[in-house]
Each structure stands twice: as structure tokens, then as C-alpha cells.
């Protein structure tokens, strides 16, 4: 059954999303929660799934590791939506295609070509987000914002098996969460400047930005997906 702590945490997150959306003049249903479940047991994910259905919501999970996702899929119901939100290594690209519904971390030409090649061989299409390094954090992956036109004009046209859904960013860690706001705004602006709506499926541009500490700010700046782990599942013990 669904524990009271999980219920309260999810309720809090939904309220915060609704408040942030209202401040930004947006509809809450425009924003999707990606429940970051790295290192969390499948039993807790099932609990979250049941809670979502109770509330009339669809659950989406974010996993970081191919191996962990593989193990969890063996236990979770078929059709469970899982995004790849961790750095994707080249040697995991092929497996990732069958495990993830959306790959949020397409961060280099090499990964794009690899994903396209394996998807073509498997005769499937795969939804992706382009990971953008807005913070110019050398420790993070991602395309530079200025590089996006090149990727759109020169790389993606050679990757017909990849379906672009939008952009994603992991900002650097700021002591003051409010300092992340310019980075979120930058991702939104990058999408606008590059006219991403023309390249994305059904003209809808997903912006995956914001995590447990700063998702309300990200939503005010246009986030359509927020990756929330701690605020839903509690502190990671591993």
C-alpha cells in the first residue's frame, strides 16, 4: 500500500508545481514529473506508481544506469515509462534503446550517431532530448548553447531514427538555488532562438530542467519536465 510519507511528499511536490505554474501563468498539466529513482528499490517505485494512479496521474521515472534500469524493468509492469537521465556511455547506447522511452542525455555527436545507427538496425525510432550545458560547467556533459544550430542543421538530419522532443540541462550546483534561474532562462532562450518548435514532434518543445531543490524556479522559467528524486523518495542512502 502507499505509505503516508510518500503520499505527503508527492502531494507537496504537486502543490509546489501548481503554485509555480500559477505564478508563471501556465497550466500545471503542462509540467511532467520525472521521478528520479536511481538507487531506489523497485518496490518503492511500484508504490509511487500506485499512488499516481490513485491520483489519476501517469508515472514517469528517470533512471541513470542501464544495468539498474534493466533489473527494475524485470519487476515493473510492462509499459512503465522510464527516461534515461544519467550520462550515457557509448558502450551502453545499444542497450539503452530498448530500456528507455526517452533518452534525455544525448550530449555529443558521437552518441547521436551511435543511437541512430543502433535504432536503425533495430528498425525503431527513439525519442531524445539534446543535453545542453548552459552552466558552462566543465564537469558536465552537453552541447554548448551556441553549438545547437550546427547539431540541428548538420547532425540530426543524418539521424532519421531519432525523434527530437526538446532540450535538457543539468545546471551546476549553486549554494543559492535562485542563482540557477539565469541558466533555466538560457535553456528556454536557446530553444526559442533556434526555433526548436519547427524540429520537435507535434511542435511541442520539452524543456527538462530543475530538480528537487529548484524545480519551482525552473517551472517559472518554462520547464516542462522536472526531475525530482529526493523530494519524492527521500534522501538517498547510497
Amino acid at each position, binding site marked *: 500500500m502507499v505509505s503516508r510519507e510518500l503520499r505527503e511528499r508527492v502531494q507537496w511536490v*504537486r502543490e509546489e508545481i501548481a503554485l509555480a505554474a500559477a505564478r508563471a501563468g501556465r497550466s*500545471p*498539466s503542462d509540467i511532467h514529473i520525472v521521478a528520479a529513482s536511481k538507487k531506489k528499490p523497485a518496490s518503492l517505485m511500484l508504490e509511487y506508481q500506485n499512488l*499516481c*494512479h*490513485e*491520483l*489519476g*496521474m*501517469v508515472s514517469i521515472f528517470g533512471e541513470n544506469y542501464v544495468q539498474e534500469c534493466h533489473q527494475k524493468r524485470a519487476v515493473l*509492469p*510492462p*509499459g512503465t*515509462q522510464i527516461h534515461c537521465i544519467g550520462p550515457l556511455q557509448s558502450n551502453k547506447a545499444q542497450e539503452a534503446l530498448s530500456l528507455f522511452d526517452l533518452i534525455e542525455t544525448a550530449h555529443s555527436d558521437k552518441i547521436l550517431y551511435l543511437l541512430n545507427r543502433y535504432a536503425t538496425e533495430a528498425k525503431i525510432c527513439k525519442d531524445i532530448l539534446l543535453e545542453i550545458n548552459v552552466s558552462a560547467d566543465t564537469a558536465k556533459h552537453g552541447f554548448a548553447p551556441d553549438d545547437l544550430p550546427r547539431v540541428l542543421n548538420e547532425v540530426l538530419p543524418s539521424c532519421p531514427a531519432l525523434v527530437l522532443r526538446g532540450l535538457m540541462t543539468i545546471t551546476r550546483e549553486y549554494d543559492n538555488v535562485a542563482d540557477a534561474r539565469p541558466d533555466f532562462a538560457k535553456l528556454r532562450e536557446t530553444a526559442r532562438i533556434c526555433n526548436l518548435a519547427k524540429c520537435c*514532434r*507535434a511542435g*511541442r518543445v520539452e524543456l527538462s530542467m530543475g530538480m528537487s531543490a529548484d524545480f519551482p524556479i525552473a517551472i517559472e522559467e518554462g520547464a516542462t519536465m522536472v526531475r525530482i528524486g529526493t523530494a519524492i523518495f527521500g534522501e538517498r542512502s547510497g
Partner: protein
Amino acid sequence: MLKTSGTLILASSSPRRRELLTALRLTFEIKPADCDETPHPSEFPEAMVKRLAQAKAQVVSIAQPDAWVLGADTTVVVDGEILGKPEDDADAARMLALIQGRRHVVWGGAALLNQRQGVAEVWGESSEVEIAPMTTDLISDYIATREPYDKAGAYAIQGVGAQFVTRVFGSYTNVVGLNVSALLQVLRKYGVVRGV
């Protein structure tokens, strides 16, 4: 050979539920129930569909205490918002814009009542439905077919709208209007039905 013990009454005017039961070769009567279908404030979808299924069955069961009365209710929920049947074109367009290009949850509730035997079995379950991306033009065209009217969530999974349903997770008949597998389990449990 399917044998029914006693009278089975479907307390619903839904043609889809009637077709589901007919396809199973069940023998039944139809007595639509009128009751207030307004959701209670902050009522969860599961509670709502079970409550309404029971309320519909109750109305008919009181008048026919010897009969096995079946009530059902289905609701479409997007991000916690319960979508009823659209009131007009604008309402239908709003609902279709909400459900297109993503998944939503369908909650189905059912109740089997028999006053004489003191049976009040109520059950419910959820399915997830994935809808293809729909442009505003497609949405307008679909509304022009008039099919969205009288459908929860403004679409029919088994009509013209079938072309927009890409995947179903969970029971399909639950999405149509009544999980027939769960229903037959209950009918067999009480000996209402024997055989196939």
C-alpha cells in the same frame, strides 16, 4: 453453453456496455439508472467510479430486489483532473488537446447488487491509455464527426477515435466501459453464470 441463474439487469444506457455483454452471450435486461453523477469535491477517481457504479445499480436494485443488478462508471483522468463528457465543441477541443500526445489514466468502477441475497460487490481498476499527437486540425475534424459527445474524455477507443489510441496498458475492456474479465469472475463467484 452459458447459463444465467436469475435475472441480470444492466443499469446503464451505454451502448458500449450493452455490446460488451451481448458479445459474451449473456442474457440480460437494460434499465438505465438516473442519478447525480457530479464528482464530490477532492474525491479520488477510484472512489468516484465505485461510488457512481454502486449508486446507479442501487436505483434499479431497490425496484427489483430479486435481480442481479450491474452498475458501471468510467472516468478519464489527466494529471489528476477528471474529464467528464464534453459539453460543447470548445470543451471537447480542450479535452482532446489535453490527452493528445501523451498518456492518461482511465478508472473503471463496477458494482453487482442483489438486495434479496444481500450482495453488494464493488470493484474498480485503472488502465493507462496512450494517445497519438493530434494537430488542432485533426482535433477539429474528429469533433466534427460528433463522436466525442457522450464520451468521457471526448474520445471513443473503439470508434473513429480508435485511430488515435496507440497503446493500452492494463485492461482494454475497462477502457471501453467495463472490464468483462473481472465481471465474469464476480458473476461466477455468486453462481449467476455457469459455463461459457
